[in-house]
């Protein structure tokens, strides 16, 4: 009897062990708000990540193991982002994290990733002025979005500029860069109007009439909008209702994509512009496949794809390739392997990870169509490499970032020859 029991126990132990090895997975953290203000934008990215992981598993996983998504909800609460990041890395032991949307959430998790030495892929366009060893920026830096958009409008004859934004770090920095850029191009001070509004601003009457008045000085005027999230819908509604058409005063937005337009009647907005690195309307086989997969995964033909989703697509594939090259998920090895990795993007080219942890992308300028899609009207001839430190801000002009040995520095000052930013 005792024998039988011990045999049974041994068998159980064995099978248990076998099961454990069979189910050993590589964990991938997904750190996007599923509740609170930012849920509107970030929930989609969570779904996109789940889809990408599912696809990778269907292809046989990674290093012979299955991938497992660990989804947490930081609830649009910035300090909670740091806590949840810590939980993902130390408790769930994820190999990499894909997440964050707002700059403030990214800033809040930076120290955690540095301390615990993990990897974060950040998929949203941002203000630049940052390069951190543990973070890979797959969204656009200002020179990959804002500057080409303004250059396009200059080609279209715009001479007067309204820089309108929500009052926080991304619009403030972007507008500072743009203001300097415009002045360098010979735009006079009085031809630039800068305006900031609180988060979720809903009464745009005054600002829209101000824009209208500013635009009637006899020079072609355009609005460069870094207005964020929810505030865009009432802004565009007011524009439409006050009869400002894109043919009079075009608005080029950096935070308005297909997803944001889904809540709007876009017929009065036809011709207003958006600048991104990806539009759902991109006519490539990769994109058609991605859209079909997305519709199948989410179970609805009405859902749109957008630029941050493409950024995750690129970032995830880069990570997969780097892990395969390194043969391990060890953060140090993967961080080194990531630089130089090149994967297809959805607009018919390849994106490569640069030594400054930003990627190369094409810049697309598109006009909003009546069906809520954005149609490319201009595209940079080649790929644009993300510049972590803007050349249009005096403090960041001499800085470069290169995480390859021997420099291994995110803010090397070429003027002083030291690593450590603009100081002295």
């Amino acid at each position, binding site marked *: 009897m005792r024998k039988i029991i011990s045999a049974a126990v041994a068998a159980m132990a064995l099978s248990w062990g076998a099961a454990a090895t069979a189910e050993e997975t590589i964990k991938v953290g997904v750190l996007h708000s*599923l*509740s*609170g*203000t930012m*849920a*509107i934008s970030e*929930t*989609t990215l969570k779904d996109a990540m789940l889809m990408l992981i599912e696809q990778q598993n269907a292809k046989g996983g990674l290093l012979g193991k299955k991938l497992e998504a660990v989804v947490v909800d930081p609830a649009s609460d910035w300090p909670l982002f740091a806590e949840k990041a810590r939980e993902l890395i130390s408790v769930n032991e994820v190999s990499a994290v894909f997440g964050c949307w707002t700059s403030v959430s990214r800033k809040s998790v930076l120290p955690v990733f540095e301390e615990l030495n993990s990897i974060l892929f950040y998929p949203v366009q941002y203000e630049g002025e940052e390069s951190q060893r543990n973070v890979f920026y797959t969204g656009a830096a200002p020179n990959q979005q804002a500057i080409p958009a303004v250059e396009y409008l200059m080609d*279209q004859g715009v001479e007067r500029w309204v820089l309108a934004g929500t*009052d926080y770090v991304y619009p403030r920095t972007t507008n500072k860069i743009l203001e300097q850029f415009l002045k360098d191009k010979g735009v006079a001070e009085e031809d630039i109007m800068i*305006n*900031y*509004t*609180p988060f*979720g*601003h*809903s*009464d745009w*009457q*005054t*600002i829209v*009439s*101000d824009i*209208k*008045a500013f*635009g*009637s*000085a*006899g020079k072609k005027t355009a609005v460069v909008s870094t207005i964020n999230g*929810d505030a*865009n*819908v*009432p802004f565009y*509604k*007011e524009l*439409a*209702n*006050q*009869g400002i058409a*894109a*043919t*009079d005063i*075009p608005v080029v937005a950096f935070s308005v994509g297909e*997803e*944001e337009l*889904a*809540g*709007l*009647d876009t017929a009065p907005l*036809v*011709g207003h512009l958006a600048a991104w690195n990806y539009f759902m309307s991109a006519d490539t086989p990769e994109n058609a496949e991605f859209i079909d997969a997305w519709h199948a995964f989410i179970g609805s033909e009405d859902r749109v794809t957008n630029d941050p989703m493409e950024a995750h697509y690129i970032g995830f594939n880069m990570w997969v390739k780097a892990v395969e090259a390194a043969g391990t998920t060890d953060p140090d090895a993967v961080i080194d392997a990531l630089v130089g990795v090149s994967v297809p993007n959805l607009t018919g080219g390849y994106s490569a990870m640069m030594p400054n942890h930003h990627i190369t992308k094409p810049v697309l300028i598109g*006009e909003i*169509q*009546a069906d809520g899609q954005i*149609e490319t*009207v201009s595209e940079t001839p080649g790929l644009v490499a993300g510049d972590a430190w803007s050349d249009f801000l005096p403090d960041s002009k001499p800085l470069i970032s290169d995480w390859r040995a021997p420099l291994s520095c995110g803010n090397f000052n070429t003027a002083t020859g030291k690593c450590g930013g603009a100081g002295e």
Partner: protein
Amino acid sequence: MRALLCSFFMILALASASTAETLDRLREISAGFVTKDYGQVQATAEALAATGDARVATALSALRGGDLRFRKSDKQVFRVEKVGRDYALFDPFTGEAMGQAGSRETSKIKVNNAIRNAIDGLLGGLTLRADDPAIRLDAAEALFKSRDPGALAALGSAIEAETDGSVRDAMREARASILLASAQNEPQALIEAVETIRARGGQDALGLLAQIGADYPEPVQEAAAQARRGIEQSLMLWGYGQSLWQGISLGSVLLLAAIGLAITFGVMGVINMAHGELVMLGAYTTFAVQEVIRTSAPHLFDVSLLIAAPLAFLVAGAVGVAIERGIVRYLYGRALETLLATWGVSLILQQAVRTIFGPNNREVGNPSWMSGAFELGEMTITYNRLWILVFALTVFVLLLLILKRTPLGLQMRAVTQNRAMAADMGVRTAWVDAMTFGLGAGIAGLAGVALSQIDNVSPNLGQSYIVDSFMVVVFGGAGNLFGALAGAFTLGIANKFLEPLAGAMLAKIAVLVFIILFIQKRPRGLFAIRGRAVEN
């Protein structure tokens, strides 16, 4: 010049006599649309318009609307209409049906803003003699903007033939605008043009006059400068009017958001943090109603809000009664617990809506009578805001009547003033509490119907209004509806007059600081209720 014009018209007449030939010519030109080069598309549109053929107008408006496509196989250009996932093809000039094609078989002729602008001008030239005066007016306005010197001759003859006074004025202004575009024109004609533009007034006129630079003859420059000063002065006065209107409009939004709270917080003393979410429920009810109408009865779209309003009242009211019966009634007299409990309810409602409808914004359309704007002098008044003002005041008056003229209102006031005595008189105080709370909640739902027209319908809708609502009620004086009215409009107007001076951010801060100071001085708000009710 006249001889030239004559021969031009003769050619036109000849051309239209042999329509088949011109049609071939038009088709030949339109082959130029098969390109990815925006410059070539624009040149092709201009070449088409230059034929002067009336049939070009339909093709150009189709091009502008993105309804012109070419078949990839034979590069033939069609006007298309969407039929399911396919396109029905029509001849762009004659409108003759030409069969169907799948969306991948054809390719859209892309246009950008520059081309849209050019087309507006070209269409303006082509439709100056249209039968409908509204189209002629649009044509004149388009020419005013495009300032195409090629249209001068057509404008001149159109002005002479024009029978409608206001259209003729618009055409004269368009002609003046075109004349002013070039410094080479006769000084006398330029000065007359400046006068015409001055009479028009407004910001467009100001922009035109600003372009008269040093290369113009001196008297013209002087006349322009004078005209600008005059327009600027009148614009400034109108600017105050515009700010006042915007303030009133913001006030009406605040009033709508706060008026329900004036009942639950003001009359009952319940700090209802879920008030904003009740507003949101109203907005989502509107969305649901519109969704049903879109799929089953599209012709009812214009009355969708009228259908949504009572439903929103019932939905939000029912949720309100449930909150009162389920939670709030156990917490009367414990302000802090009520605050926390209702805040919890607000989070639950938000997440519930997020789960059911998704986290994204939902599209709520403006019915046609709420879209667009009209000009009152130099003021732009948007219809949606005008109707919201009317709606806010109607709700206010109705609520006042309910409180003052109905048995329910009487009981409500009795219970608020002296609960024990009201109970002794046979009033079912618990029932009255539930109804009062439900009334406040229902009105929040009504506010949601209105707010869905100007704000985005998302689970976060309520959050943005809760602070403002409390501000209005506290400032106006709790327990007094007129306080909420005065509070809402004071805050709205103050905000809008501060905003141009200080910016949206600072204006908001300034208003908050002002309220804090005001409450220090008058803790009970603008319209304080005195008496025993307050003392308990």
